[in-house]
């Protein structure tokens, strides 16, 4: 799985920023592969090729916020002097009540809105330097997943995912190669020709993740990805995101599902009224575990067979 993702990544690099990100990713992968052979941890499923350990923060930051403030019109505060950075390959949660600034951070990152003061750099490049007409090309390096999925009705699962490739001008042959691949990864191979209306909430979210990740962007933003889903389905979604994270993709998840956050034991950035009140880049990282173990832990169980989607 992981090897295939890497292969597809290498082929799709079009933008210099992206190429740069790729290069770093590949370096990390090589480093990790080397480490793996030494550690040689036991795998629960010997059939599968051993997956690399979860990406740990490496030396350089992918996202860096420096004293970022965002004031909306009418003096609404979106974000107040927020400073944090996210390492490549890191998994971070943004938590906080509604209106605390989680979505503002997401919108700032995709350059949907502009900041009032401070600076944001992504992959070492200040966002302010990206010209208005270059923004679409910048966005191709970021996958975005929303609570309400934002799927297109009247188009099948396949068409929905292919749409993201079509509108960025990719060739038909590329689309034919990439879409079935990503649908297999997200466990939707059998739902190819279904319409979104015919799918459950969890399946719809999988489609939207497939669409966000089909280009293998180095950064995946998830705004309340499990907000509309029941706990069990949410675990499935988190498992899928975890699998994507393990390929080296940086993941930023905004949520107010505190239980989930506690169980995941990943970095937590807590926001209140636009201020960062807690940033636990703790050493609480769970040991290197398979997606199955991961899911079991989320359910609060011992190691036991859950629905594996690989």
């Amino acid at each position: 799985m992981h090897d295939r993702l890497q292969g597809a990544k290498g082929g799709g690099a079009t933008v210099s920023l992206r190429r740069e990100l790729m290069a770093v990713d590949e370096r990390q992968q090589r480093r990790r592969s080397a480490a793996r052979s030494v550690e040689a941890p036991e795998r629960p499923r010997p059939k599968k090729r051993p997956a690399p350990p979860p990406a740990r923060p490496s030396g350089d930051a992918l996202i860096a916020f420096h004293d970022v403030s965002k004031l909306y019109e009418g003096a609404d505060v979106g974000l107040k002097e927020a400073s944090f950075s996210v390492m490549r390959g890191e998994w971070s949660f943004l938590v906080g009540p509604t209106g605390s600034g989680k979505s503002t951070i997401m919108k700032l990152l995709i350059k949907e809105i502009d900041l009032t003061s401070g600076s944001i750099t992504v992959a070492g490049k200040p966002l302010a330097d990206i010209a208005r007409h270059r923004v679409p090309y910048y966005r191709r390096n970021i996958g975005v997943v929303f609570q309400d999925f934002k799927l297109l009705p009247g188009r099948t699962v396949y068409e929905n995912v292919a749409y993201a490739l079509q509108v960025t001008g990719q060739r038909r042959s590329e689309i034919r190669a990439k879409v079935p691949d990503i649908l297999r990864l997200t466990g939707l191979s059998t739902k190819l020709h279904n319409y979104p209306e015919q799918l459950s909430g969890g399946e719809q979210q999988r489609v939207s993740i497939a669409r966000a990740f089909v280009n293998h962007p180095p950064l995946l933003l998830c705004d309340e990805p499990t907000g509309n889903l029941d706990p069990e389905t949410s675990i499935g979604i988190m498992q899928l995101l975890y699998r994507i994270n393990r390929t080296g993709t940086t993941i930023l998840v905004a949520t107010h599902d505190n239980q989930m956050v506690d169980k995941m034991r990943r970095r937590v950035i807590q926001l209140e009224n636009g201020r960062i009140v807690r940033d636990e880049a703790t050493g609480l990282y769970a040991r290197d575990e398979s997606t199955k173990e991961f899911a079991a832990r989320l359910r609060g169980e011992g190691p036991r067979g859950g629905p594996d989607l690989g």
Partner: protein
Amino acid sequence: MRLGFFIREATRSLKRNAAPSFAAVATVLVTILVLGIFIPIVQATTVATDEVRGRLLLNVYLKTDASDTDVERVRRLIAEQTPNIKSVEYVSKRDAYLEQKRRNPTAYELLGRNPLPDTLRITPSDPDGINAIRDALTPLTPSGARTTIDPAIDEVRNRREDTDKIIRGTNVVKLTMALLAGLLIAASILLIANTIRLSVFSRRREVEVMKLVGATDWFIRWPFVLEGVLVGALGGVLAVGLLGVAKVAFVDPLTESFSLIAAPETLNFPLLVLILLGASVGVSALGSGISLRRFLRV
């Protein structure tokens, strides 16, 4: 690939917005029909008016007792003293009588004698200067009456009054048609703008997704522009088809009896078709442009 994608997207949203699209197509059709009738009519009337103006004459009526020497003198006077003369034709009493008798035999039979004077018929080189010639031959006195520069001249008259009526009449026709065409063009633009606005609204999810995954601004805009142009082109093609049928069915049989329609200066049909199709596409592109500017924030 891209063009195919744009066309697919455009037709998809045309189907989804069938009603407003139909309204826009119908309006473009009517507009182009009116333009298609208006342009040849304006051309034909312009040609006709010019012809009438070209035929403007000034009649210098001499006194009934004028002798041949008087005629010669007046003729010389005209040639020497007035500008803007193309030609002067002498119509004798007898010629005038024969001409009138030929047109209206019974009336002149009853008359029994010739009441007509000798006439010098002046063709001006510029129709607009006709009044200057008249003033030169019969200057106005301070009291407002007219005198003549030669005692043999009885009266100088032209048919300007009649031509003025023709020119005024054709101008009214032109003005109404232009007004109607202008209103219809405005209506077409607005209706196409409305169609595109509805299309933008109904495709807002697509637009949102396109923006999220990094489609360029023009990639997002093209399907809408294409949709507007398709609507316009459809209306235009239908209108041109109808005009073609009308031409074959009604105008062509009439060309033998009406010189106006056959006037060689009017546009030939292929050129007219080209102009009309260009107009329909232009109108629809303008309409789409207005809507995209106002409603598609990319």
